[in-house]
């Protein structure tokens, strides 16, 4: 198969592949890398492409493997409770520490979603999260399959997963309260 045909695939399918990768990872940078890697694999393995499926199907199957690998790699190690970050929020009895206690928010204020300043605070708080944690928040996979299925597919323990989400959410919530609602 001529390489020019594959170059045609690049113009034909990049948009769709990119959009899918973006949807799955919420990161433009990661999505671009994954799409790029997909085409590089396609070039290497082009002899294996028999044409029983369409090029688009084949490329998507490569991309989906890449996406799964990406998440597997991130969640591979068991959660190391880095200096037990939970101590930041709770005392030895498991009670809220005074300065971390959730106050009432006026989140019913639907305008917040459109408020540019609020969005900036949200972004700042998200960026402050360790990568694995912010990744767990973004795991869009969850909207399409049951979380049990996802964890199974990624080879991670549900316990590991929601413990990461727990820590991320605690930090995110505190950050938002401190930088918006308490002011």
């Amino acid at each position, binding site marked *: 198969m001529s390489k020019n045909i594959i170059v045609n695939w690049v113009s034909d399918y990049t948009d769709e592949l990119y959009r899918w990768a973006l949807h799955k990872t919420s990161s433009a940078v990661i999505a671009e890398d994954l799409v*790029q890697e997909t085409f*590089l694999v396609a*070039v290497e393995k082009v002899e294996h492409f028999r044409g029983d499926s369409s090029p688009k199907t084949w490329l998507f199957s490569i991309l989906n493997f890449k996406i799964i690998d990406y998440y597997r790699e991130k969640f591979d190690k068991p959660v190391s409770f880095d200096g037990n970050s*939970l101590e930041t929020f709770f005392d030895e*009895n498991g009670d809220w520490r005074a300065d971390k206690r959730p106050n009432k928010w006026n989140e019913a204020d639907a305008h917040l*979603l459109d408020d540019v300043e609020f969005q900036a605070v949200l972004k700042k708080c998200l960026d402050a999260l360790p990568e694995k944690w912010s990744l767990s928040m973004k795991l869009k996979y969850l909207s399409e399959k049951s979380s049990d299925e996802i964890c199974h597919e990624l080879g991670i323990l549900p316990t590991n997963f929601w413990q990461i*989400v727990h820590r991320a959410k605690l930090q995110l919530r505190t950050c938002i309260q401190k930088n918006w609602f308490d002011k």
Partner: protein
Amino acid sequence: MKKLMNILFLSCLKATELIEKKLRFKLSFSEKIRLVMHKSMCEACTNYEKQSLFIDTLLDSTKNNAEHSTEDLKKNIADKMLEDKT
């Protein structure tokens, strides 16, 4: 009173953990009961649950994935493909 509450029903730490677990997975029957009891006595964790849900909504709706042009991406890929395999 607090200690008793923790023994019977859950600490706030455990309660918040279950709140997150509940958002994505199933709680066992006993976990459900204990969480409900804890929240009925704990305003902080009741607030936490509302806020956690709210954050999830924010993240779902935040289309911070502004679609920018893929032209550069396509060019980069094509260049890379043509350059190394000859």
